[in-house]
């Protein structure tokens, strides 16, 4: 990795990274890819998030589903761990709670492939800050 040497470098790098992310997440074109995030805080892992993440990676690979699976921290829904957030291209993220292997399978087959929602999704009930505006 190269060192970031000035504030201008930092800002340039941020912009590049942001455009990569938005290209990946927001485009509604076939190139837009599905983003899957697995909540991997201690409580998530203790309830089996690691196995779910491995299952999702393996199965989507086998079933030729083009998706990016990554880990993230605690989403705050401890009562419903493991939690998995799926963002289909051009759509709002959806959070699935209490994901076991069967549910992970449903997420791939029903939601990712068909846009069909599953019972028990967790509605987002918070607001986050708009970082760019002051």
């Amino acid at each position, binding site marked *: 990795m190269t*060192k970031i040497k000035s504030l201008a470098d930092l800002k340039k790098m941020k912009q590049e990274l942001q455009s990569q992310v938005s290209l990946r997440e927001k485009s509604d074109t076939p190139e837009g890819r599905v983003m899957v995030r697995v909540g991997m805080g201690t409580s998530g892992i203790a309830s089996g998030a690691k196995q779910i993440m491995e299952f999702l990676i393996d199965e989507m690979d086998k079933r030729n589903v083009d998706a990016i699976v990554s880990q993230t*921290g605690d989403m*705050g829904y401890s009562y419903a761990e493991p939690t998995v957030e799926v963002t289909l291209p051009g759509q709002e993220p959806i959070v699935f*709670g209490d994901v076991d292997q069967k549910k992970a399978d449903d997420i791939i087959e029903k939601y990712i492939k068909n846009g*069909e*929602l599953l*019972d028990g*999704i967790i509605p987002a009930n918070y*607001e986050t800050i708009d970082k760019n505006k002051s």
Partner: protein
Amino acid sequence: MAKYKMHMLVCGGTGCHASDSDMLFENLKKEVQDNNLENDVQVIATGCFGFCEKGPIVKVIPDNTFYVQVTPNDAKEIVAEHAIKGRAVKRLLYTDPVKKEQIPDSKHMGFYKKQLRIALRNCGMIDPENINEYLAADGYEAMGKVLLEMTPEETIKEVMDSGLRGRGGGGFPTGLKWQIASKNHADQKYVVCNADEGDPGAFMDRSILEGDPHSVLEAMVINGYCIAATKGLIYIRAEYPLAIHRLKIAIDQAREYGLLGKDILGSGFDFDVEIRYGAGAFVCGEETALIHSMEGERGEPTFKPPFPAQSGYQGKPTNVNNVETYANIPVIITKGAKWFASIGTEKSKGTKVFALAGKINNVGLIEVPMGITLREVIFEIGGGIQGGKKFKAVQTGGPSGGCLTEKHLDTPIDFDNLLAVGSMMGSGGMIVMDEDDCMVAVAKFYLEFTVEESCGKCSPCRIGNKRLHEQLDIISKGNATEKDLDNLKNLSNVIKDTSLCGLGQTSPNPVLSTMENFWDEYLAHVNEKRCPSGVCKDLIRYEVIAENCVGCTACARNCPVNCIAGERKQVHIIDQSLCIKCGACLEKCKFNAIAVI
């Protein structure tokens, strides 16, 4: 295969369920089928929306229409109007209580402002092991701004103006702390991050470090620049292996990018961070004890002054802040002190992260603006009490805090209000108790914890808390008199007044506040030798209710001490002399034939 054009989300949370959301769900499904829309519209049940007050809730996507107080009879209209004709059913929309306007979609609802994520802004959003995701989320921008465009004085003023107060529990103004540390000159100064989260049931700091470690590193660099310290130390308990793992990755990645180390961003400022491990002692959350532990000494507090800002780690000026405090700093810099100070109450600005635990439906981590009421936290965001039971109390501030009851439900939560009602903010643990919890047992539980965690340096804490615990034990066994209750109160006050550090000064709080709020319960234990909640083992007994018992033998088979006798299909009997009161029979009985007396 069906490719749905519309989804109707029906809240299946406990609150909405109680007001017939299941029937509404069935009716919507039926209407969709009757109109041959089952391939276009999907009706699904969701988890709690956290808006139970206005339930049942139906949300329609993609247009995010948000219907409130929907009855099963409204299903027909929703399908006919919204699904078929594409018009929202106006009378079911949420009306803003202040502006008196109907709000068509959930994004504009004030309700969603109940939770505001500042410290948790990236938790659950970015990959904590990838610095690029943090950079894409404006990471290290605040640090760049401070190092290259602001002076230390300007930065400290910004933090002071924001009104940020220490999130570890004490609530000391962060900017002031920085200012004091900046004015003490020395050849070497230190910045310390306190990640020794020790309250039972609290996991705010752990979640921040696991979900967004870079935000803490960034804030530590800013802190270092402000007080002219070039070394940062993170004191974290070894019981947090995942947080440590992710912190290490974060530190390595930041070093590789040159965001930690020499001449950061060409500013000429050097700063680096190291991790120090604690063995998980509660007292090491106290800053002097924490510093001694880092120096390799016993984790015992020392008298203040001198404050760490004068003489801390290795005798040098040291600034200690909590993880959550640090997580707020980068946003204060990028968005400005004025913005931050506009959130919260007069003397407590910003938000607070709470770990909701105990008998509450939505156990988890929440971040709310200061000034929100307990009622909103417990009944709306938390989804109410498990099993529809009655709310009894909530303990804030862990073993140092006190319990709040029904009469405090509408008190706005901030540092000063909580102190005024005999509790404290603490680091943010919130343990909710229902009608089945005995307050004497709760006080005893916390005392057990403090007795265990007392470092033993000063006698009021070492001996006094042990005596308090013994007294509570006597009360819970039904062997106490009213005079013992007076003694309990007096001893509590003496310990509070004479202990060396915060641990002893606050450890009698659970006793005092439960006595204050649940005096009747203490009296019942003392005078009537009765535990009203049926918890204290020595004051209760399990009995078989003869008319309900069918003789299924489930209780007898599960009794670990074989003290239940009875033939099949005959009424069973519990031998009280052998019973250990484990409650296994009560749990296994399907016929409500076991009672706690």
